[in-house]
């Protein structure tokens, strides 16, 4: 947080429909993470409007932002960001805890999503007992747990090798197939081609925005 302000995004105008799988590409400094943070209400735009599921997102104080994030959004991070002293199951249950879901239902739901990402047998392991791919799958389960409208993934495969990346992408494609809207930031063209639409950013503006033929990840696995 320096005192010098920097205009990162200089006029972004795009819409994402329900059920889309969009990748946002660009070199570092292009503003793709900032865009994702604004969409994730972790950051706020100086000007402009943002409407999520017909709800105008504006005048956020931290409390309202936290509630919107909890209800509407699921985050997947490059470095997984699991809480390392909580078991996989408890990590997945955390967003539900903040929703005020009682313990029994929480555990049940969390277990359901862990099972969905294929990690039910690892439910009581701590994050550092899991491999990178497994950690990211726990993180995906966590993002899904609160049944959000949109999943926001910031370089979800950035810390993974190619094989594991493909496994994670396969999972993400599967989730998208079930109708979930997913926005994904990446700088890897291979990963971007596994989405249905690629938005290219450069110096804070969209230079192109194309729907593409989706490459299924399972053909590499």
């Amino acid at each position: 947080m320096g005192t010098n302000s920097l205009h990162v995004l200089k006029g972004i105008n795009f819409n994402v429909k329900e059920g889309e799988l969009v990748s946002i590409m660009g070199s570092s400094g292009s503003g793709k993470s900032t865009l994702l943070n604004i969409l994730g209400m972790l950051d706020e735009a100086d000007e402009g409007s943002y409407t999520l599921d017909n709800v105008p997102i504006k005048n956020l104080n931290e409390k309202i932002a936290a509630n919107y994030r909890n209800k509407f959004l699921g985050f997947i991070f490059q470095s997984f960001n699991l809480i390392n002293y909580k078991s996989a199951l408890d990590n997945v249950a955390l967003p539900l805890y903040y929703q005020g879901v009682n313990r029994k239902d929480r555990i049940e739901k969390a277990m359901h999503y862990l099972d969905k990402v294929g990690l039910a047998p690892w439910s009581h392991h701590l994050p550092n007992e899991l491999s990178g791919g497994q950690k990211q799958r726990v993180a995906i389960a966590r993002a899904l747990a609160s049944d959000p409208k949109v999943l926001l993934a910031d370089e979800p495969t950035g810390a993974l090798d190619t094989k594991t990346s493909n496994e994670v992408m396969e999972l993400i494609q599967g989730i998208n197939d079930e109708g979930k809207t997913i926005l994904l930031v990446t700088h890897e063209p291979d990963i971007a081609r596994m989405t249905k639409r690629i938005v290219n950013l450069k110096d804070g503006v969209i230079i192109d925005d194309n729907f593409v033929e989706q490459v299924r990840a399972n053909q590499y696995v």
Partner: protein
Amino acid sequence: MFSKDRWDEILEALNANKFRTLLTAFGVFWGITILVLLLALTNGLKNGVTAGFGNFATNSMFIWTQQTSKPYKGLPKGRRFNFKLDDVASLKNDFPQLKYVSPRNQLGGYSGANNVVRGTKTGAFQVNGDYPEFIKQQPMDIIQGRFVSYSDINAKRKVCVIGTGVVKSLYDKNEETLGTYIKINGVNFMVIGTFKVSNSQGDKEEEANTIFVPFTSFGQAFNFADNVGWLALTANDGTNITTLKPQLLESLKNRHKVHPEDDRAIGNFDLSEAFGRVNGLFSILSFVGYFVGALVLMSGIIGISNIMLIVVKERTKEIGVRRALGATPWIIKSQVLQESLILTILSGMVGISFAAAVIWGLNYALDMNGPVENFANPSVSMSVVFIALFILVVSGLLAGLIPANSATKMKPVDALRME
């Protein structure tokens, strides 16, 4: 506020770094231990010193005659005079505020010559001539028989009540004492009771080696006529003997033709005043105890505050993640507050328990090794424990306040960027 989920969250966080949690907790543990111990020791000192007063009714004073220091009504200075039995009657009459007026006389005493004989055994004891009220001013436990009564006084019976020390020196073990005779300064007295001084400290031996006889028989047997050695006065509960003192002295001076401004003619010892002074001293001492204890505790609190700041700093990213997942700032703040509160209270409880164990040990050692002068029964009351707990709760909240605020100061996006 404290659901099971909250508890789990907090305990998980505290468990995540056990050693550090332990070290941090030690500061508060130590502070509260010292606070409680200081108060207990103050209390022990107080108990010891007040026990030095014996169990004598504290609203009392002793009063005796000395030489006059001023000539008055044709009488020279340096004159000696005695209180008489009719002074007792007049005091009782003029001062209804007085509960007990006991004239006393004494023979023998500390390291006196042998004055009591029974068969082939002899001993040196303190012999008091007393009225029946005296046992109400200085409580004692009658083990066998009874204390002196008014019918003894009126009939001038030669009877006596003897202390356990006397029994030990003059009688064989298990020998019957009641109804036997002992010879005090050549005069036979029948034993009608034995006593021991209840919860006495300090002068135990001297008190046990004491013989009480009726005041009137004492005067007759030992040639004291109706002279009174000194008076033990106790005021009614509503009246302080110290405020009554000037009037009492004035009345006695008047009766004995002593100059009203002659302060040396009548000596007195005001137990109530002395007691009040000692009590005042101990109020100050326990204030010092609280003060020092609170200061030591404060360094423990600062330790907790400090470590919570570090914990918050270390967990910046975790806090960012939690906020991304939907934790409101208040949830984060209250968790930090609760962590510090629980850490403080838990370590404080352990500290209080530890102090209680030390106090128990001290008492045990005192019981084993017999009484120590000016120190007895160190203890704290429940109210002190509650005050200590209250201090802990307040300080736990204070310790968490700054860290809790700093935890949510950063924007989530910046928090997430931290490594």
